[in-house]
């Protein structure tokens, strides 16, 4: 429990060096290939930084990520977030079912996903890109929000996930996984 280090402008190259331990799961450029592990390339700076804070403080829990984030300083987080935001996201290979993709497109409309995640679900600021994300990860995370175990920043996603059925979750994930993962502006 010590004083936070004064913030300073994020250092992209420092972020690249500090991302060394992250490579094994998230890939050298933040594009992961392990099913269930998200790609973080091109995610907005605020988003990645907030997630790391939540892992460090125990508000978001994961057997792999919690220990990785436990000893990161605020500066480390800013550098890592800047590095990954600068990387270009590539599509994740996924076997999606056209019927689920179509149903997911409808559900995304009904559930107002674009209100926060923006058209194309590309994300901005503290809100993540969902387009082209890993299918297994999307399903896992939506189930977590529904179960109220995936800590979100302000409760918006927990609230939004409550009306979703298991088949809704699958359809939404299939739809999101097929969208082109354009980098967040």
């Amino acid at each position, binding site marked *: 429990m010590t004083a*936070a280090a004064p913030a300073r402008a994020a250092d992209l190259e420092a972020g690249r060096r500090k991302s060394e331990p992250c490579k094994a799961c998230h890939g050298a450029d933040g594009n992961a290939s392990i099913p269930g592990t998200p790609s973080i390339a091109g995610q907005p700076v605020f988003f990645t930084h907030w997630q790391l804070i939540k892992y460090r*403080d125990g*508000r978001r829990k994961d057997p792999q990520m919690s220990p990785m984030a436990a000893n990161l300083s605020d500066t480390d987080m800013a550098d890592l977030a800047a590095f990954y935001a600068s990387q270009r996201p590539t599509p994740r290979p996924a076997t999606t079912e056209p019927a689920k993709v179509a149903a997911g497109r409808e559900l995304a409309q009904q*559930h107002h996903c674009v209100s926060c995640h923006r058209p194309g679900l590309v994300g901005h600021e503290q809100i993540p890109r969902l387009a082209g994300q890993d299918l297994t990860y999307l399903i896992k995370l939506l189930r977590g929000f529904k179960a109220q175990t995936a800590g979100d920043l302000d*409760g918006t996603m927990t609230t*939004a996930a409550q009306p979703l059925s298991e088949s809704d979750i699958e359809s939404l994930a299939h739809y999101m996984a097929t969208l082109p993962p354009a980098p967040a502006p």
Partner: protein
Amino acid sequence: MFRTPVMLLAVAVVLVLALGPLGEAQQPAQAPPPWKQGQPSSMADSSLAPIAQPPAPKAPGEIPVDKIKVPAGFKVSLWAHSINNARVMTWGEKGTLFVSSRTAGNVYAVVDNGSTRDVKVIAKGLNLPNGIAFRNGTLYIAEVHRITKMVGIEDKLDNPPAMEAVYETLPKDLPHGWKYLAFGPDGKLYFNIGAPCNICIPPDTHANLSRVNPDGTGFEYVAHGVRNSVGFDWHPVTKNLYFTTHARDWLGDDMPSDRFDIAAKKGQHFGFPYCHQGDTLDPEFGKGKSCSDYEKPILKTGPHVAGNGVQFYTGSMFPAEYKNRVFLAQRGSWNRSQKIGFRVMMVTLDAKGGIAKYEPFAEGWLQGDQVWGRPVYTQQMKDGSLLIADDYAGAIYRVAFQR
């Protein structure tokens, strides 16, 4: 009905949110995210959205204190920095300044060494712990769903004591679920239970000001029809409770105004969701209602200004006329095409308790359309100077008067 246990109806909120605003048959069945809820179809293309909270505080060199304008004779300095998402400030008895946060989930202790300040994190990972209050060596912390306490905290800042339960049966709803917390003149802990929506018929348990004894007994509602009040204080002489309220969004740039109210007695209704700003019925929920049935604000503070902190000035550093004036910290608008707020306003009350003057005290966090900071709460120092917390820059400023 006022005695209904708070916890029983928490579940109902999810249902209310899921149903969303009625009456537009073409709308999809699911409720939009809370901040977007109530947006009319005519505004569907609006790009307005809440301002994102930065994940880290600004470095001191990135904080342009000289842009903060105050009246002649006053001077602003950067008092503390690197306090992520700094919100409510409250003093310990031994000179520690406790500082809360909201999305950062932390509670801080700031130890003043004269020319420098140490910032310690005394609790982290909490559920939007905005409300903090201190009495008899104990720090009380209000999260969304519970009030807890840390006994003897000021002697154990480096090894904080466990958080003990005070009152743990509050609703879990996150929209407007964060709380302001303060001791009233009656020794009770006062806090808000906000409406779990932008606009809806809230459950009977929500949209109020409430109080509980510091031992967790005697819960009761104080005021109803209060959409979300996250700032209040008591008049130093009359002991009346004054509070700010954030008004609903998506009724346009200039409607409705946020409010500054007085709760002169228990059980009054302040209009939400039926009547806004004391004189305007809600286009949907106001049907068949009359504004004359509800309390009117003593001051319309402006549309979307987001009034948070309320503080009566009781110090002796500022000129004599400042005594018993009220500082209102306005965090600033998002639901308006031209930004407004981002300032600390000052209210002068007349002899009858009415509004004599409403004027800026500190402003400059908004430059053109660019926001570099958001003043959210104030706290008086022992010497009579005024601290202002900025949750966007993660900083605390000190305003002093120099003759």
